[in-house]
């Protein structure tokens, strides 16, 4: 094993990984979806007759074909019609009020509300046959006017649901701020920011394989972050007890938040598998993913930030018009995360954030790595730079002056968060020192005096985020079992998609028990093997599952000591645990190993539920950029990311995630975005040639550093890692470009900072000229 750094590596590097598309199930059918090419319209006709005649096609159905059916006789379910897409109450992502009257059909019925919405499904002997059939489905949709930005959709001149407002949710955090506060402030800055829609783009698109078993159970394989949620939601849809469904997550090719729901295609595939009594799979291809997979971000923001003459923050107001897509079922409440985190790392006494979640003719907005925190950080940190410029202060000094001091935790924010721990100035100081802040400022001055030099800018971004989950979802289930052969099985409810759990968690368990690492094996991502669990989202696995495993280890040690005490007829206090063995405190000679104890006393397994508090990781990112005003290009000369995720379980793994996350942050700042035509159709016909993911050519020198402030929310002290770059990096880069160009109107620099955006900003009036 020593030639493989991670346990996952052997199979993933030799072609023996098993992703859903790699699984071989005899007789498995492939599903292909027929999708709307218009963003908004009335469905006049979906005729699948010709598709059914195509050789190799098993069946083809529109929504109408799967409505009003006689009760299905398949043993697995009391199914009748194709059920609609479920909504989630998890983490307050959606609620009953928002979805009432707004059904999300798994196949669109009389109306389509986003380009890419499925209107029919064709099942064939393989994907080629299924697509042959899909090409024969006749679809006629009369287009309606479409709206793709929340600002335009909010006035309801084009309603997605007749008789209902497009505004599906409103909320706020903090108290309204009196006008006198703004009037009395020495400096007030205002701005509007657009947090563009992004595509999470894991390299493996979505997958599901549903297999009706002979015993009447249903097995489902899916690249998924929350197998237990998927099981629960599918059971409800199919009217089955949860124990009749097994969900297994095999190797998963990335997720970044986007693989944790029961999507319309999942509902359809599982329904068809049960109805047909045959295995059916859907392996999403990239092109359909680009129209029909969930998006992230999507906010139009208005901010006001006030300070006194010394730069002490007085008040911050954030108004969010959130683009939640065509249906409120998965993410209508997600923008509240931005509102709750609006305070950031500062002692601002008055903070008020309001949210208006507006339906638009786009695919649904859902968590994407960062999930609400990047939007909070980018708005605040861009505004901090505007304020520093207004006050004539160094942006680092302005931040330092307002940080919540390291000694003031737990800290209750005006927007309802209770931060567990923090040391913000240490993180900033490390970032400044690492990047050589003073040297770059000198270089910037030199360039400003040289008309031939390309302008250079330095951008900072200090963030605080939240990890572990929201109240009601901060727990996890974990267990450890000792076997007669000396091996240990650890189980937990997590489901990784590239985060190295198989390596990291056994190491943690081995350390907690004091046994060799290679004796410990991890089981996760299978609802039969681990009956209860929440999953991997909200940067929670190390923090919550890690702590839950440590907790289970402590319980196992207690049980083992009790058993040994019984064996030896002595009080448990007199039995000592040491490195996987037990011995009486007074007479070391009678020591017994854990394996032996199991042999003598029977199976030893503990399972428990563990409750974590919220964690609030933080950090400081700094970027230096050079801008070519003629070409509109941005060259990142240096990026430093300092993150604090508390206790680090595996430094190389955390570092790898921080680096990759920072690159996704660069993607948001400079490259990624979804252009929409006036008709509301995303202009992504050329797939990944149109949606610009960073390639290796775009990667600047990035230095990853950390500070380590353990969270008191769990005994382990680990906080979330991995989302840091998406949260901290974009504002650092945008601030650096603003610092280089000094445009008077900050609204000119809206992400992604494409050459067109930068070229225009470079020609606009400068800040000093405007004054």
């Amino acid at each position, binding site marked *: 094993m020593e030639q493989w*750094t991670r346990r996952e590596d052997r199979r993933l590097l030799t072609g023996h990984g098993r992703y859903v598309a*790699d699984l071989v199930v005899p007789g498995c059918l492939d599903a292909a979806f027929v999708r709307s090419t218009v963003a908004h319209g009335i469905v006049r006709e979906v005729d699948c007759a010709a598709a059914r005649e195509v050789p190799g096609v098993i069946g083809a159905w529109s929504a109408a074909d799967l409505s009003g059916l006689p009760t299905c006789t398949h043993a697995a379910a009391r199914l009748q019609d194709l059920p609609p897409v479920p909504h989630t109450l998890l983490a307050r992502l959606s609620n009953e009020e928002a979805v009432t009257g707004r059904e999300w059909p798994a196949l669109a019925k009389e109306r389509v509300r986003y380009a890419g919405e499925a209107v029919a499904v064709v099942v064939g002997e393989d994907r*080629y046959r299924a697509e042959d059939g899909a090409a024969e489905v006749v679809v006629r949709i009369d287009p309606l006017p479409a709206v793709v930005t929340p600002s335009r959709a909010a006035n309801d001149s084009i309603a997605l649901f007749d008789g209902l407002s497009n505004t599906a949710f409103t909320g706020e955090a903090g108290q309204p701020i009196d006008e006198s506060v703004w009037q009395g402030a020495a400096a007030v800055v205002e701005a509007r920011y657009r947090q563009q829609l992004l595509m999470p783009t894991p390299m493996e698109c979505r997958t599901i394989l549903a297999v009706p078993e002979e015993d009447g159970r249903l097995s489902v394989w899916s690249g998924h972050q929350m197998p237990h949620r998927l099981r629960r939601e599918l059971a409800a849809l199919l009217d089955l007890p949860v124990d009749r469904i097994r969900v297994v997550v095999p190797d998963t090719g*990335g997720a970044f938040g986007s693989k944790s729901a029961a999507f319309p295609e999942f509902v359809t595939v599982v329904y068809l598998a049960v109805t047909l009594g045959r295995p059916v799979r859907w392996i999403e291809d*990239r*092109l359909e993913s680009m129209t029909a997979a969930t998006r992230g971000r999507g906010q139009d923001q208005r901010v006001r930030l006030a300070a006194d003459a010394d730069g002490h923050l007085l008040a911050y107001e954030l108004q969010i018009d959130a683009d939640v897509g065509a249906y409120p079922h998965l993410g209508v409440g997600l923008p509240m995360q931005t509102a709750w985190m609006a305070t950031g790392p500062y002692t601002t006494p008055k903070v008020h954030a309001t949210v208006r979640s507006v339906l638009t003719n786009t695919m649904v907005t859902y968590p994407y790595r960062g999930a609400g925190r990047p939007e909070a950080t980018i708005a605040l940190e861009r505004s901090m730079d505007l304020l520093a410029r207004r006050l004539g202060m160094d942006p680092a000094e302005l931040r330092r002056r307002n940080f919540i001091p390291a000694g003031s935790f737990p800290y209750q924010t005006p927007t309802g968060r209770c931060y567990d721990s923090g040391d913000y100035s240490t993180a900033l100081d490390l970032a400044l020192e690492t990047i050589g802040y003073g040297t770059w400022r000198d270089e910037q001055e030199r360039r400003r005096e040289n008309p031939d030099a390309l302008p250079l800018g330095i951008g900072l971004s200090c963030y605080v985020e939240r990890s572990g989950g929201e109240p009601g979802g901060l727990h996890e289930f974990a267990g450890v079992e000792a076997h007669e052969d000396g091996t240990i099985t650890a189980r937990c409810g997590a489901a990784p998609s590239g985060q190295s759990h198989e390596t990291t968690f056994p190491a943690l368990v081995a350390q907690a028990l004091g046994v060799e690492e290679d004796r410990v094996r991890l089981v996760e991502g299978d609802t039969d093997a681990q009956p209860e669990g929440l999953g991997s989202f909200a940067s929670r696995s190390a923090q919550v599952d890690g702590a839950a495993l440590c907790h289970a280890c402590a319980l196992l040690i207690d049980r083992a000591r009790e058993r040994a005490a019984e064996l030896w007829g002595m009080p448990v206090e007199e039995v000592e645990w040491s490195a996987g063995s037990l011995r009486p405190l007074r007479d070391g000679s009678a020591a017994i190993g854990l394996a032996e104890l199991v042999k003598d006393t029977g199976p030893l397994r503990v399972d428990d539920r563990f409750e974590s508090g919220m964690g609030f990781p933080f950090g400081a990112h700094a970027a230096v950029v050079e801008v070519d005003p003629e070409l509109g290009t941005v060259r990142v000369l240096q990026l430093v990311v300092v993150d604090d995720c508390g206790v680090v379980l595996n430094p190389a793994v955390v570092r790898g*995630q921080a680096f990759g996350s920072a690159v996704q942050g660069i993607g948001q700042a400079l490259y990624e975005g979804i252009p929409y035509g006036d008709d509301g159709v995303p202009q992504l016909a050329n797939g990944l040639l149109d949606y610009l993911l960073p390639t290796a050519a775009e*990667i600047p020198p990035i230095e990853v550093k950390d500070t380590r402030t353990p969270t008191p929310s769990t005994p382990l002290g680990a906080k979330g890692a991995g989302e840091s770059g998406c949260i901290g990096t974009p504002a650092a880069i945008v601030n650096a470009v603003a610092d280089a160009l000094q445009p008077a109107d900050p609204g000119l620099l809206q992400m992604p900072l494409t050459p067109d955006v930068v070229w225009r900003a470079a020609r606009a009036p400068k800040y000093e000229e405007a004054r």
Partner: protein
Amino acid sequence: MKIKLTVNGEQHSLDVEPRRILADVLREDCRLTGTHLGCEHGVCGACTVLVDGEAVRACLMLAVQCDGRSVRTVEGLSSPDGEPHPLQRAFSAEHALQCGFCTPGFLMVAAGALEADPTIADDSERIDGLVESNICRCTGYEPIRRAIMRAAAESASRGKP
């Protein structure tokens, strides 16, 4: 259409529809699922394999175009006795993979280049070019670049007398 493919040294006599892409035939007919499809239009490079030693996107090539030719996939990287390829060891050592989905493509791009010219370790721009040819969403590429450098340096030093 009947074709003969040599895949990782093994002869396969196959009857395939002319429209089937090489990646699907490798995955489904030859049961070699290490070759992954990430975009199916030649951009991401996850499906990269070697055809007669040259790196190709297996999603842009029809299987029938490979009739009589020799294909190498990630399953054929290790030596027959199971000893990992220097690239496989280097990718692991440098944490050059997280979810592993794009990894076979990067391995094959690098393997093709390294085998064609063992001196690429001396030319960091050429290695940059290799890494720039594929997409990874997890690692941020730097570990992949380091891994290829490491494997190339190792191969070069082995090749020296």
